[in-house]
């Protein structure tokens, strides 16, 4: 076990390499690196994206809950800013439809040999810089609308984490069952 900060950082980056390989591998195997699969989800002709996402959420939700309880892992909950979440989310969705990739699946698309994914990735880089230009304004305006901090459903409805996870697991599982009947 290395304990020096440099050693720790190196170990962490080595983990990123291993986990990233696994992530790209799984996205490709799941079929979600493919243009027609992603666009098909938005057209409701192909439900692969929802199947992959809902399964991932279900397993991660239950896994993280127990890891948090037993191993005290640190959670990474993003702050709720209703205005920014909604406006940003909708703009993201438009981009999703136009490009037929998302930031993770675009990388996986390139990996499986889709040359056009590069154009999309250039767009992502440009959009990121554009946002940085706008970040000061956004912080003073949109990001202030409905700024609620790091809230979760269980803090919102005042139910303990365990029952909340159980309820959400049932909801997600039911959604999966419905989706599996659709295609």
């Amino acid at each position: 076990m290395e304990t020096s900060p440099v050693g720790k950082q190196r170990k962490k980056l080595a983990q990123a390499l291993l986990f990233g390989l696994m992530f790209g591998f799984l996205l490709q195997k799941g079929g979600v690196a493919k243009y027609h699969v992603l666009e098909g989800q938005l057209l409701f002709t192909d439900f692969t994206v929802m199947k992959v996402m809902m399964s991932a959420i279900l397993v991660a939700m239950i896994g993280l809950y127990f890891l948090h309880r037993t191993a005290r892992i640190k959670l990474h909950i993003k702050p709720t800013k209703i205005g920014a979440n909604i406006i940003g989310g909708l703009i993201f969705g438009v981009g999703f439809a136009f490009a037929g990739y998302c930031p993770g699946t675009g990388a996986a698309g390139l990996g499986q040999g889709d040359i056009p994914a590069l154009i999309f990735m250039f767009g992502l880089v440009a959009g990121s810089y554009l946002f940085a230009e706008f970040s000061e304004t956004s912080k003073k305006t949109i990001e202030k609308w409905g700024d609620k901090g790091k809230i979760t459903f269980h803090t919102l409805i005042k139910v303990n984490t365990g029952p909340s996870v159980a309820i959400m697991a049932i909801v997600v599982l039911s959604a999966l069952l419905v989706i599996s009947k659709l295609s």
Partner: protein
Amino acid sequence: MKTFSLYAFISLLGRSTLAAAADTTMQTGGAWSPYLAGAFIGVLVCLTFYFSEEPVGASSFYATVAGFIGNAIAPKHTMQLEYYKEKPPKVNWEFIFVIAAIFGSAIAALHESEFSLRGLPQMWIDRYGENSWALYSALSFTGGLCMAFGARLAGGCTSGHGISGAAQLSVSSWTSLICFFIGGVIAIRLIY
């Protein structure tokens, strides 16, 4: 070595438990069951939280790249921007993670003989024809632009909000995820 044995294990699973047909036309779905691939991604999220103390995410990689480019061209201007003051661009966990994902996907595609250099997607050609690179490029670039802008504003993408965040029952993540799909379902009507 560790990576290799893991890969061997996964490929064994893929071959033995799933009768997967090799997809050469890119018109079908994934080689694996989407439920299985999704469940493994869920396990992967647990691993990254446990070992690296990081959620799985992809979009900030592009912000880091943009920051590097900005720093190379106009360092003074870039570093006075609010976003980069808070998050100075550096080679971090997510940066390596996304680059590795490109190679991970390549391994998966090679393994299924799905890897080949491809031009325009068939679905696009069916609608817009072969000679539509200009339109495709414009739309794809604009799409990427909107997507990164939206992701930064919303605080994450389909991975960071959609999987990692949603799994923690975060209100911001579920709100954003639902909006991703609402925006997408509306906008796709413009092109298909």
